């Protein structure tokens, strides 16, 4: 399955699958953008509402998750173990589960929960894929632990035990009976919920250099870990208190993200990075800074009230996924495979188009927030915004197709 490629090994296979899902997700995204301009393009029962979970989920569970799967396969040295042939099986199982999911979402089987749209058959398939992956990692651990240091062996075991909870957590989180606390003034997440999800990402960003590049040059940087622990504490307290975006403690929870704009780049500076990783690293921190600062701004009283339910929040989601997460995944891929993502044209084209799309959506969202008049009488700015968005989407699709192509053929 890995023929015709300059890269070999299971992590490389996972990367190619990841890029394949990115191209597919972007294709669907472009189609959705076009549907908002011309609803007549809708194909029968496969409506906008059915394609939306496909777009969201393949980006999250395909494009952004498979590099993490590749990372896990690398950490547990699956390719060096006697069970190496099962590594590819885990990757294919993941892709098969997503494909099953796509069919279910298009068929109208939805849990109704964004990014947790796993229900009945799709849930069973995805849990099966997670179990297969876990078994492959466990088999590799059994095989490789004797050659690892005791610390690594125990840390990997702890990781395995943690990973065993993932399928259970997925089933729990996808359940219709479970819903996170909401800000009753907006119907959206609380500040602490935003902080909590960001802290998970921050945790990954703290682990990445330590696992891939080794120990920092200038000691272990305990201040970062202390602030990380304090942040979790703040999250726990404010989450338990609940409240709205007008409550100081919820604003405080979001404010606790601000130092990470500076702390993370500073932390990463202390590691030796391989050549070729700089561009994506800088891009990632650029997007990260924008993401945190815009989150703070958008959480303000009066601003959140205006932009809630508008395209501005779609803009923010794209900043998170197309900007920050894409850069993070691309960097991870570069680090894992030592193989560049894209070229001198496609990478800047991606970032520029993403930025343009985000700016367009944010502006449209701000105007939408002024009142519902546009709903019955679509103004020119909205139509032009959608058109510009579609153009940006087409460029991003072309860029991602180039990344995939470059990763398949030398």
């Amino acid at each position, binding site marked *: 399955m890995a023929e015709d490629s300059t890269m070999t090994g299971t992590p490389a296979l996972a990367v190619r699958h990841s890029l394949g899902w990115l191209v597919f997700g972007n294709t669907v995204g472009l189609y959705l953008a076009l549907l908002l301009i011309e609803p007549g393009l809708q194909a029968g029962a*496969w409506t906008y509402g059915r394609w939306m979970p496909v777009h969201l989920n393949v980006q999250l569970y395909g494009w952004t998750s498979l590099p993490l799967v590749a990372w896990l396969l690398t950490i547990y040295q699956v390719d060096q173990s006697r069970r190496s042939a099962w590594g590819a099986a885990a990757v294919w199982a993941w892709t098969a589960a997503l494909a099953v999911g796509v069919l279910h979402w298009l068929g109208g089987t939805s849990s109704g929960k964004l990014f947790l749209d796993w229900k009945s058959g799709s849930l069973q398939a995805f849990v099966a894929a997670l179990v297969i992956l876990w078994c492959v990692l466990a088999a590799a651990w059994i095989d490789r632990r004797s050659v690892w240091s005791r610390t690594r062996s125990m840390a990997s075991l702890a990781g395995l035990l943690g990973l065993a909870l993932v399928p259970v957590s997925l089933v729990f989180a996808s359940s219709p009976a479970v819903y996170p606390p909401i800000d009753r*003034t907006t119907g959206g997440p609380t500040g602490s919920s935003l902080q909590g999800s960001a802290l998970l990402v921050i945790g990954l960003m703290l682990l990445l250099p330590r696992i891939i590049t080794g120990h920092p040059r200038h000691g272990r940087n305990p201040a970062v870990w202390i602030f990380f622990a304090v942040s979790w504490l703040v999250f726990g307290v404010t989450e338990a208190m609940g409240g709205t975006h007008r409550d100081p403690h919820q604003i405080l929870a979001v404010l606790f993200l601000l130092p990470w704009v500076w702390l993370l780049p500073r932390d990463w500076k202390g590691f030796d990075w391989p050549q070729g990783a700089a561009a994506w690293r800088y891009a990632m921190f650029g997007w990260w800074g924008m993401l945190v600062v815009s989150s703070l701004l958008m959480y303000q009283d009066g601003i959140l009230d205006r932009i809630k339910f508008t395209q501005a929040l*779609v803009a923010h989601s794209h900043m998170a996924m197309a900007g920050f997460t894409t850069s993070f995944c691309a960097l991870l891929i570069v680090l894992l495979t030592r193989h560049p993502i894209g070229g001198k044209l496609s990478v800047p084209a991606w970032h520029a188009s993403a930025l343009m799309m985000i700016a367009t959506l944010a502006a449209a969202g701000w105007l939408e927030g002024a009142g519902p008049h546009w709903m019955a009488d679509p103004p020119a700015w909205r139509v032009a915004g959608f058109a510009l968005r579609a153009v940006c989407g087409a460029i991003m699709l072309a860029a991602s197709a180039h990344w995939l192509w470059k990763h398949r053929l030398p």
Partner: protein
Amino acid sequence: MVGGGATLNVRGVRASATVAAVYGFFLLFAQFAFVELIRAAGRGHTEEKVLLGVMALAGVAAGFITAWRGAHPSMIRRALVAAALSSALAPISGNMPGALAVAALTGSALGVSTVALAALLPGWCGLPWVGLGTGIGYAVCNLPFVFQQSPAHQSWIAAGLAIIGALVMPESAAWKQQGEKPNTLPFPAAVLLFTALVWMDSAAFFIIQHAADLKSATWGAGHLWRNAALHLVFAVISGLCLHRGARRLVPLAAWGLLAVASLCVNSASTRDIAGLFYPAGVSLYSVALVAWPGWLSGAPDSKSAAWRAAWLFAVAGWFGSANGIGMAQTLQRVPAGFIAIAGVVLLLALLRFNRSHMRPALAVAAVTACGLPATKQASPSQATAAQRGRIIYQSEGCIHCHSRYSRPGSPDESIWGPAPDPKTVLAEQPVLIGNRRQGPDLTNIGARRSEAWLKAHFLNPSALYQGSVMPSYAHLFADGRGDDLVRFLKESGIESTAQLMGSQSIWNPIGSALEYDAKALFARHCAACHGVDGMGKGPLANQFLIPPANLRDGPFIRTQAADDLETAIARVIKFGVIGSDMPGHETLTDGEILALARMLREWRH
């Protein structure tokens, strides 16, 4: 594209034209016109089967004879002349013996020309030319002025194609592959793979042919140019991909496209999708089918390639096709299980039975099996219409465009009605707050809209709101799901009716009507029901049990005795006649409402 200078490119063009001619003849005459001529002559089902069986047997036999004798360009030329003769005579071969002769001659000509062509093509051109030729062959057959001809005329066009092929075909019998990568697919794998693909293709084709709505959605007049373009583009892509070495990707992609097309033909609501996917999938694998004997089978010379072509076309082509049609005839659908089996067969074939690749195949099979049991959506028969409607709301992803949360203390309450109790919202399973407003908030939709209005809107949203981004959901009403959804929406926030009426009674518009063109506003927001002249006879008027009001002559029930008539009319425009089919116009500004109210007041005088 294929290298080798101008001479080679001319040969490539000629080879491509020959491929187009053979494919064009096969599709236009053997697949379409001849069958239609048989039926037009009043022959029964058995006679049709006999004739097609004779054609198949003659084709298989001729293919093997060609392989035994060794492929030569002169064979193709003679076969194409024979093909032209058979299709030219077909419309005038009135009796059964005549039809049998045409069938035998057509089958023989096809058997010889396809096998010899597949064996000789590598000496003539590269794979991109094969893609181009296949695409042109398919595209020509789909051009409206070809497709819409009578069967007799189509037969003569096919004869013309065969003659063109015989005239332009290259002369060389040399065996030389034009710089293609030596990446082969063993014979058993190829037979399995192509049989599965032809089987799916034929089954889907049969169903498309025999369902009137599907046939019009696929090969209706408006779709022919689209189909021609799809065939051409995907065949060219296929040729290029095969040329670049993506020899697994092409059949896999073809299976994916045909799988979607096959699944779509099973349901009336998704049949128009099949029309998009089917031509793309067919073109992709058709190029690979022609390319396999010469390029992908590892054949060392044209004789070996001819043998492989004969076997492949006999098994995959004739056998696969017959069984696909047989299955579709019996079941009248393409079962999802069969599509999955075809996928597994394809994977096994592509994995070349390599043991190391069996693990991914096993994992994929296991995961797919886990995902299969619940492919059918649960529809609890004991549930109420509103409960079923809620499931539809969830399934259709309405949350991606509509919120169900009028925010407390915000302008939402004056536009979309009172805010819900957060505890009630969070008690729902699942919570369906939604995260976007491409359209209105639906918290109190039951109090703001009637069932008749909701249905009219689902059927054709842009009839009520010009330029609406909401697509039509008419397909939901074919099986009652739409009515359930309407019921669910009607019960959403219905308890807010009294509160909404209270808000209506105290609401006063603030703003100036001067800057608005009331006539234009009326044409845009009111004329669909009330008519451009306001007489109550708009294009949607007959969709409501109680006809829309005549705004010039009345009777005026709700605004009859108002002291301030303009404000009373404005309140009706803003909130509607709550409890009736007259909806509110929440998205209009106060100034717009005032302008409309003023004009309507004047109309009464």
